[in-house]
Every structure is written in structure tokens, then in C-alpha cells.
């Protein structure tokens, strides 16, 4: 069965520092991979997605992610974090269970930003 693991439940970084959020997936076929962000009391907003092609994908708000098939990873990065980036981040894989497509989410990583 497909699964997504985000090893870090909480991460705290200083404003202006670089950020990397880890994501590992388990899926037999070529995955469609996503990163979503959830601000407190809000819904999920798509940051970026990978379907095929260039393994380094650019997203909104200055985020990027790199797909590494050999490591089954899709880590999210940002070179300089802003206080407004504090939120919950979810990695997800789109899977098709022969009936339809659905997102399988990781457990989320809560990002806190220190001034």
C-alpha cells in the first residue's frame, strides 16, 4: 500500500534561515507528488507538484522541491524563511486504487519561525 512519511513532526528555524522539510513515499508506480501548506484555521493550499520531467520543481512563495527516485524522497526547500511561513506542511502522493485518484498524506510537519 502507498504511504507517505514526514519524519519531522516539528521544525523551528530562525527567520532568514534556510529550510528543508523531508518527505519519503512508498508507491509502486511513478508517483504524482504534492506539497500543501495549511495555515492555522485555513484549508490546504498547493505549494508545488511533481508529475514528470525536471526533478527540481518550483512552487509559490519561493518554495522548491526535488524528486529523488533512488531515495523515494520529495523534500521541500526554501532558501530564506519568512515569519509568515509558519504553518503546517503536508506532503502527499496521488494514487489510483483502480477506482479513482486520491491523495495519501504524510503526517505533516509543523514549522515554527523564530524572529
Amino acid at each position, binding site marked *: 500500500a502507498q504511504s507517505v512519511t514526514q519524519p519531522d513532526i516539528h521544525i523551528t528555524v530562525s527567520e532568514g534561515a534556510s529550510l528543508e522539510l523531508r518527505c519519503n513515499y512508498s508507491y509502486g508506480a511513478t508517483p504524482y507528488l*504534492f506539497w500543501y501548506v495549511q495555515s492555522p484555521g485555513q484549508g490546504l493550499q498547493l505549494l508545488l507538484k511533481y508529475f514528470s520531467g525536471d526533478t527540481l520543481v518550483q512552487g509559490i512563495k519561493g518554495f522548491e522541491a526535488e524528486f529523488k527516485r533512488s531515495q523515494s524522497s520529495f523534500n521541500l526547500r526554501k532558501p530564506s524563511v519568512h515569519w509568515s511561513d509558519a504553518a503546517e506542511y503536508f506532503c502527499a502522493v496521488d494514487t489510483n486504487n483502480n477506482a*479513482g485518484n486520491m491523495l495519501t498524506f504524510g503526517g505533516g510537519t509543523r514549522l515554527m519561525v523564530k524572529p
Partner: protein
Amino acid sequence: DTAVSQTPKYLVTQMGNDKSIKCEQNLGHDTMYWYKQDSKKFLKIMFSYNNKELIINETVPNRFSPKSPDKAHLNLHINSLELGDSAVYFCASSQELDSYEAFFGQGTRLTVV
């Protein structure tokens, strides 16, 4: 102009009651979903509908009954509410043959007391 909208945003109710959550999308998507986010923020799919037809039903109790009157609407009715049903419920939509990107509503926080 909200793409995926859910009502209500907050719902507090007593055990045993029956309640509904409504969802509408104006993106012209063919597929709609309900996801449940528990108190630990874990997100899991409950149902998906494609063109008003139930496609995915992920071992959800029979007390939960989705209904899709048309492809722009997917409502969730819950009978005999239990304390464990307290969660945030998210509606989402996507265009299956397009980018598979799911657009989410703002969520409905259900609290059963």
C-alpha cells in the same frame, strides 16, 4: 470568488444528532472528495465522487452518507453523531484527466459534545 466553499465553517452539536455539511465548487471539476483531519492533523480520504457517482469509499461508517446532487456539489450527512466524529472535514475537487491537483475548501470544524 471562492473556488471550493464549505458550510458551515464551525459546527458544534450533541451526541446522537444528525448533521450535514455542504460543499460547492465553481471550478467545473468532475471529481469531488471528502477528507477528514483528526486532532493530530492527520488527513485521510473518506469519499470521492466523479460526475455524481461514488468512486471511493474508504471504510467509513455507514453513519456517513455523501450525496452529490450535481457535479458541482457534494454534501456530507452524518447520522447519530459520536464524540469520535469530532474533526475538521475538508471538501476538495480536482479534474481527473488534467493535473490531478486537488483544490481544498477551508474546512468544517465539527465538535461533538
